[in-house]
């Protein structure tokens, strides 16, 4: 007689309930709302109506979706370019300074997006920002305002994303076998060649997964693009907030959310299929 394996699944109950209540049900509701149809009194009722998706297919929204994807991809690339060398050198520091740096980076994650957005707004302003320093040093003649602009949005989102990138890259890079680098050096590779032919390829899975994480993370940012960008720099997430909160158009906001979800999911799938694979 074997005991029923029920007890083995007992541990899964809390997480299943969590996922069910806080993820599956809301998601089902968004899906249903996105295909609902408007009623005469301005409300909506459940049906199978694709008009909100039709509306998305106008050039304005498609262009916004492409802009969002491009912006977030750019931010992922810049963040990795900043975070990878930093993390690589961090793993070569002593254990003490590693701990201090990691605590500092973790602490930075506790800052809210709102705080960061408004801090950057001040930092990039005409009256009390870096423009004044440039004026003082003599690089520019007169201090100027650097926000709102696309550059300001990118800068603040990179600032948000870099700590995540460092924390995601750190385990992989600190596990990287140093003798691999030494081996490539004895085989005739200069330090630079060694970095590009060994360190980066060996760390590729970690680079890809942190790139994807940053992409998805910044795709969901809503405050930075509004505070530091002009309307033409708004991402899909900002438009969703706009539709849901200011236009009370829940069905269209839901449809946009579904599009955003499909966009993220397909990026994750594509990247893990073509770039993260090839490992055995």
């Amino acid at each position, binding site marked *: 007689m074997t005991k029923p394996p029920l007890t083995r699944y007992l541990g899964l109950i809390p997480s299943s309930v969590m996922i069910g209540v806080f993820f599956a049900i809301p998601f089902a509701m968004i899906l249903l709302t996105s295909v609902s149809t408007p009623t005469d009194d301005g409300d909506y009722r459940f049906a199978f109506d694709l008009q909100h998706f039709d509306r998305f297919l106008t050039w304005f929204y498609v262009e916004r979706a492409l802009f969002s994807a491009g912006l977030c991809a750019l931010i992922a690339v810049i963040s990795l370019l900043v975070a990878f060398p930093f993390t690589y050198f961090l793993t070569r520091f002593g254990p003490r300074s590693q701990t201090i740096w990691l605590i500092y980076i973790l602490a930075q994650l506790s800052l809210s997006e709102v705080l960061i957005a408004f801090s950057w707004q001040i930092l990039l302003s005409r009256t009390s920002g870096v423009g004044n320093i440039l004026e003082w040093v003599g690089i520019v003649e007169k201090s100027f305002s650097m926000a709102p602009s696309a550059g300001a949005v990118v800068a603040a989102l990179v600032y948000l994303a870099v700590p995540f990138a460092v924390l995601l890259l750190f385990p992989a890079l600190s596990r990287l*076998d140093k*003798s*691999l680098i*030494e*081996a*490539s*050096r*004895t*085989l*005739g*590779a*200069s330090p630079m*060649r060694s970095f590009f*032919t*060994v360190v980066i*390829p*060996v760390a*590729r899975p970690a680079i890809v997964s942190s790139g994807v994480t940053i992409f998805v993370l910044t795709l969901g940012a809503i405050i930075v693009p509004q505070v530091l960008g002009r309307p033409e720099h708004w991402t899909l997430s900002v438009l969703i907030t706009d539709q849901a909160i200011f236009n009370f158009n829940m069905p269209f906001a839901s449809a946009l959310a579904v599009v955003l979800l499909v966009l993220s999911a397909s990026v994750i799938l594509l990247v893990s299929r073509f770039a993260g694979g090839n490992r*055995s």
Partner: protein
Amino acid sequence: MSGLVIEGVTKAFGSVVAVEDVHLSFPAGEMICFLGPSGCGKTTLLRMIAGLEEPTKGRIEFDGRDLTHVPVHERNIGMVFQSFALFPHLNVGENISYSMRIRGHSRSECEDRATELLDMMHLPGLADRRISQLSGGQRQRVAIARALALSPQVFLLDEPMSALDANLREAMQIELRKLQQELGITTVVVTHDQTEAMTMADQIVVMGKARVLQTGSPMDIYKRPVDKFVAGFIGTSNLLPAKRTGKQSVRVGEAEFNVGGTIAEVQTGEDVLLMTRPEEVFVRPAEHNPPANAIPGAVTFVRDIGATIEILVDCAGHEVISVLTPKDWPGVKIGDAVHVEMPAPACNVLAA
């Protein structure tokens, strides 16, 4: 040919001295083993030859060329790491031809050389395998092939056998030695395994506590160790406290011994150690007239494993091991009173 020359090399990590004032010189084409317990500085010395560490003091030369400050990638060396350090993102062929691709050889040259080396290492047809699909022994062969791809001047191996199981280890030692002799490449192997060193080396460098204790051929070191540390590290030895009584004699307890082996520079009358190897020590049943060069004792254990017989004898509180062939078997059993005979040529005197 001047070969490998190490001149007054010292390496300190902060206040810890890992290698202190090492002078060594070997002709080209020899196989050299750095032998010593862990932490004796042998790996650090190897890494300095490789260029992975820079000496704090001293010079390293090969073939008359001063390598001391030449960066690793310009030294023309091949190195096998303890962990093998094969690149996980490349397949076997790409690993082997890595050095050639770095130097800009064409793809077909790389593939040909990889095939040639795989055949030489008895791994034909594995070029397309992933590293994770290889066994430990195969990985080691690939690591050796990779290090030899560009026919380096110096071949360095850091504890190459430690990741292999015992059976494979012995076969690989013989194979590596044959390969080295075939290629005639100057080779330095770091090991803590004396059998490995004895099997492979032309010259053994015994190291302890950051210093070189003795350099010489394996038999030289086995027969004439300079001190009790070397004697204890290489092979088994019997060490008996003694007093020097003359030019070629020592006294152990009541017994006088003629010494025919090496004698350390010790004044007459001082305390010394009488060192013998177990296979040169004989056990005789106790008689009224003891043989010359012998001390009395009692048998504490007999281990007969067919090819050899090991007899443990307690001589006034000191354990002496005798390893005999069956023809010298004295027919003693545990508890018997015996005389342990140490013929003069077998006796060596070491500083206490």
